[in-house]
């Protein structure tokens, strides 16, 4: 009997994943950026680690802090505070890097985001997500999936795929070289 239960368990979880927004809600990881609270889908968070001095990437935008070695993988580190024009204090050992992953096609891409601190794990149901107000925020609208109120705080739900988007970094490099190559 117990075998049967064991077998049926993963299926049930899968079902929940599909239905998560309607039924049980999904889990999100909350974090702080300069006094504001944000969160991302917890399933995309691979790990959370302390600050290690990264290897600089030449000519990268200033918010690209460099690359680090995570168990043999070369992972770029981006400071989203800097990316979205927020202030931040110097990096210390307690500075937090969230390692996020996103699927691109059938390939997983991994990137580290520097944040002030990680706080709660939140369980958010779909109907609790409110539409974000248009503009007026440091982070551009397409990065925001919605807002969520809890513990007297407003959490901004960020889209992982747009957080890890490299388009503006690519264009930064392209601009640099086209500028330099102008005769």
């Amino acid at each position, binding site marked *: 009997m117990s075998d049967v239960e064991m077998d049926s368990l993963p299926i049930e979880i899968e079902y929940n994943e599909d239905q998560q927004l309607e039924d049980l809600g999904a889990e999100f990881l909350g974090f702080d950026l300069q006094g504001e609270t944000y969160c991302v889908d917890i399933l995309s968070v691979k790990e959370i680690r302390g600050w290690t001095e990264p290897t600089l*990437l*030449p*000519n*990268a935008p200033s918010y690209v802090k460099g690359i680090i070695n995570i168990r043999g993988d*070369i992972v770029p580190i981006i400071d989203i505070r800097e990316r979205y024009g927020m202030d931040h204090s110097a990096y210390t050992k307690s500075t937090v890097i969230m390692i996020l992953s996103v699927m691109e096609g059938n390939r997983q891409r991994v990137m580290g985001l520097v944040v002030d601190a990680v706080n709660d794990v939140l369980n958010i149901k779909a109907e609790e997500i409110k539409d974000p107000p248009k503009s007026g925020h440091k982070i551009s609208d397409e990065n925001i999936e919605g807002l969520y109120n809890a513990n007297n705080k407003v959490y901004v739900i960020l889209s992982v795929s747009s957080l890890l988007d490299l388009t503006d970094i690519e264009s930064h490099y392209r601009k640099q070289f086209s500028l*330099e*190559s102008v*005769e």
Partner: protein
Amino acid sequence: MSIDLSQFHQVFFEESFDGLEVMEQNLLGLDPKQYDPEVVNTIFRAAHSIKGGSATFHFSSVAEFTHILETLLDQMRNGQREVSAHLVDLLLQSVDCLRQMLTRLQDNQPVDRREYAELEAKLENEIGGEQTASAKVAEANVDENIDENIEEQQDMAWFIEFIPERQILQTGNEPLRMFRELALLGEVLVVANTDELPNVAEMDETLCYSSWRIAVLADVEESAIREVFEWVSDECELVVKRESEAKVRARLASHDSTASQPTLDGQAATSSEEEVADESAEPIEDSTPTQDLTLPNQKDVQGTATSNKAAPVATSGSSIRVSIDKVDSLINLVGELVITQSMLGQMGEDFNIKKLERLREGLIQLEQNTRELQESVMQIRMLPISFIFNRFPRMIRDLSSRLSKKVELEIIGETTELDKTVMEQIGDPLVHLVRNSLDHGIEAPEVRRANGKPEQGKVSLNAFHQGGNIVIEIIDDGAGINTEKVQAKAIERGLISETAELADEDIHQLIFEPGFSTAEQISDVSGRGVGMDVVKKNIQSLGGTVEVRSEQGEGSTFTIRLPLTLAILDGQLIRVGSQIYVVPLTSIVESIQIKSNEVVSLAGNFDVYKLREDHVPILRLYETFSVKADFTDYSETVLVVVEVGGKKIGFMVDELLAQQQVVIKSLETNFIAVEGISGATILGDGKVALILDITGMLKRLNYQKSSKKGLAA
């Protein structure tokens, strides 16, 4: 048999493609004037293996096609048929045809036999009236069937007489298994004939002395029965007859033909299904104890490759064939590594400072083992370049006849090894270059004669190792590059200005420019617009370079330089401030302490270093990469002079660190490509270091030059 055969498909395809290659090469070597039976035998064996394999996997189109081919080859082998150029052409076409079929099957696409009907008809035509014995029998059977069908509609059965050749067991074919398979079709009666069975003392246990008469009491298709014997059809006498059940039973009971009353242990067995299998097993077991015992002998029996040998489980990705020597050496090295490890482990248990020297020795040994192991593992990825070179004889043969040119191909250094990944990607550029040599390089015979050259042109492929590179040269003794024509074309295409005065060498480089093709007419051989620029790009993407040397009227030489492997690099670590970079060791010419008085400042804050005869432009790495350096004046810094494509640059660095092998990791896995950086690596302390891409750095230098000039102006 409920084995999932699809797991062996990949192996079958690989073996078949190998077989086709063997056939092709040997066909090209087949000289009608000097008939060498061994060559024909080799071709025959390859075809036979493909046939056997394809039948096993139910690729009937391939099997049937190869069967026809095999019949023809068999006639050649038996000397019934003269080897002619026409025949060789036909056979080469068949090889192409088979390759196409197999490629389709591999891609899970259906094979339409009608497409190949024409070639099949040609082959059949060639074979003419002489059909093989088995085909005749089959035909005869069909006739008989029709007659008997009219006589009596019911109770039809099959009578089979199966007289295997004695060596049949050595190829891994087990009659018992076939009978079991027959039993799946319906009730089976088997009578074994053991007349030939010698005394136990004289018996060679690897031979099969029995023959069988079998009745299948079921009205099934003849093909179903023949399929059972498909693997062994060439190693036995097989008679398959469709008769009424009564007749079949009578035949089995009596002993017409060669079969006489069975004796001793091999008794007449008439029973159904399982019992048949068990009982008939006895005589077989007598003559062949187990299959394991027959296995060693398989090696001796060359050519009968239909054996169902245990194939490694195929993976869906690409696979690699490795010679057993390489694997053995790997195992040896791992053995040594284990010994070193246990030695160090023991030392660690009661370590004291007196043992320091021994510890150091042990670590040195460990390092040695690791390096050897690494080299050995890399060796596994290395394949001889003949894998690519082998396709050229055929190509040259076809092309030269299409272009009505006479060309001889010379291949040198085909055993030179290079990385499989590099190999896969260098094939197309090489084909392109060889085509070019034939199409544009080698002149028509009459032109050659007029120019006092031998009518037959020559294209040489030469591969060798040089430093950490593999060099491939494509040399032709053709017309060479017509500099005037190239220049005119380049002006027409707007690649250079009309007034530009270029050295011949520079003009030669123009052929690698995008959109450049001098072919007056776009022939189907070359000049499709995918030109030398693509060749150059492909080679560069492999981290290689391509150069051309040409002498008008004398010929051209294309030189391709490629790194031996893409995964590991010999690097020189350099330090700029807190950052460590890796410079590929192969590109470093020398490293020197900068003498300030040898630095010459040019316009626009651009410095060159006077190095003997050369003026080497200096690239301040800290400036280019915008990092903090310890020193920004020349007196304290080191200049690392690197060379790529004949151009030199000097990197200004703070310090030279160790030289070591580094494993290349791509930046693009999680990030984007960065100009001047070919990848990253992880150093001993776990930190990441960037690997400099010299070609990209050269480009950066040019950007800087032009932007500075722009600022100065």
